[in-house]
């Protein structure tokens, strides 16, 4: 019988941690891109575009990420597509994070005083020009701390992808538990590794918030 030393457990978990990091980065980048598109539609002049994107956001915030994963996993398969777990995981996490990021950023765009919109429309700027040159540069400043804060939610969200069989940190933890019968140690280590990823991001987000608030006050 093969026996597992503590180092074996840690080493295997660290190897799986790569996939958690990779999936988080991909979801954050793609979710951010999609979120930006959703944001543009969500703040557009056309009421029907705002309604559709509101429903999109409501849909992804009001349903479990787990169900979104299952639907991506089984839904695409219905169209005859062979869906590997990583693809379903990436797709569901991208849509999920885009809904949250769009809503976070909408708050930041709406925090920009109305007068800025009016002034730029007096200059005959189009909607895209207003966004590009006037609104977004200012909104970006407010948006950075909560966006970094949300990246923590994405890292934690990737844990759910273990359920459809994507072998990242959580799945590796379950597999190692099944081999070693040491759930207490293994899950404590898994939790610690997530903590090591997320805590610096949380702290960074907090410090950014303080920094931007301080410069806002004078």
């Amino acid at each position, binding site marked *: 019988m093969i026996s597992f030393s503590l180092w074996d457990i840690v080493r295997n978990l660290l190897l799986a941690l790569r996939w958690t990091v990779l999936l988080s980065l991909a979801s954050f980048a793609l979710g951010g891109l999609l979120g930006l598109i959703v944001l543009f539609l969500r703040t557009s002049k056309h009421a029907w575009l705002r309604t559709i994107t509101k429903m999109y956001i409501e849909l992804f915030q009001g349903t479990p990420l787990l169900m979104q994963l299952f639907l991506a996993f089984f839904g695409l398969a219905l169209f005859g597509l062979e869906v590997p777990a990583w693809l379903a995981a990436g797709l569901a996490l991208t849509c999920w994070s885009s809904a949250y990021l769009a809503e976070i950023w909408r708050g930041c765009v709406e925090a920009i005083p109305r007068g800025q919109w009016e002034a730029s429309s007096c200059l005959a700027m189009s909607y895209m020009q207003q966004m590009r040159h006037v609104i977004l540069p200012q909104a970006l400043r407010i948006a950075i701390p909560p966006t970094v804060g949300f990246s923590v939610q994405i890292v934690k969200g990737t844990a759910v992808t273990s359920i459809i069989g994507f072998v990242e940190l959580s799945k590796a933890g379950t597999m190692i538990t099944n081999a070693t019968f040491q759930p207490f140690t293994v*899950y404590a280590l898994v939790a610690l590794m*997530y903590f090591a990823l997320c805590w610096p991001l949380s702290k960074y987000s907090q410090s950014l918030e303080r920094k931007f608030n301080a410069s806002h006050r004078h």
Partner: protein
Amino acid sequence: MSYHFDFLAPFDYPAVLIKGVLVTIELIAIGGVLGIAVGIFAAWAKTQGPRWLRPLINAYVELIRNTPFLIQLFFIFFGLPGIGLQITEMEAAILAMVINLGAYSCEIIRAGIAAVARGQIEAGLSLAMTRLQIFRHVILPPALQKIWPALSSQVVIVMVGSAVCSQIAVEELAYAANFIQGRNFRSFESYLLSTAIYLVLAIGLRQLLRMLGNWLFGRPVAKEAA
């Protein structure tokens, strides 16, 4: 070969589905109330409690907010029996939800407490109220009123997150969907229906919490912030 949808298929096992919805409601009802209670206690301890308690509360909040709910659930359900604590899956699920919501609501409520004007507390002191009376009657109600929308959102997030409790065989809604698709192989339809039910539950819960806020605080609370 094309796929023929059968949207009536998820209703093949109505009893399982109904039980799933009821268990999900039970989870959030118990988890929500106890979780907010823990949050209030933790926020009290962090702002006015004994000094030695504060680092412990801080550690609790940081640890829970920076690890996935799924891992907290697994640690409680699979890990605790390893050191001799036996609990049922339902107890584990509720415990995990209470611990999770407690940490998030602690931070939310603390922000509300910080926003209560200093003069209010001094006024309470001048009426010879004890510190606990001041917290209960002067600080907590306006603090909760201010952060009620944020707290409501967090409760909805925890309800939606409870779907992963199916992984430790709690027979809630996601478990029902898994069960049904395991019987009739209609996975897409089952998951679509259960997702729709979750959406209805989330919207209903948000309305319920808004009404509860209006009732508790006597006047309409601020509309949900972005």
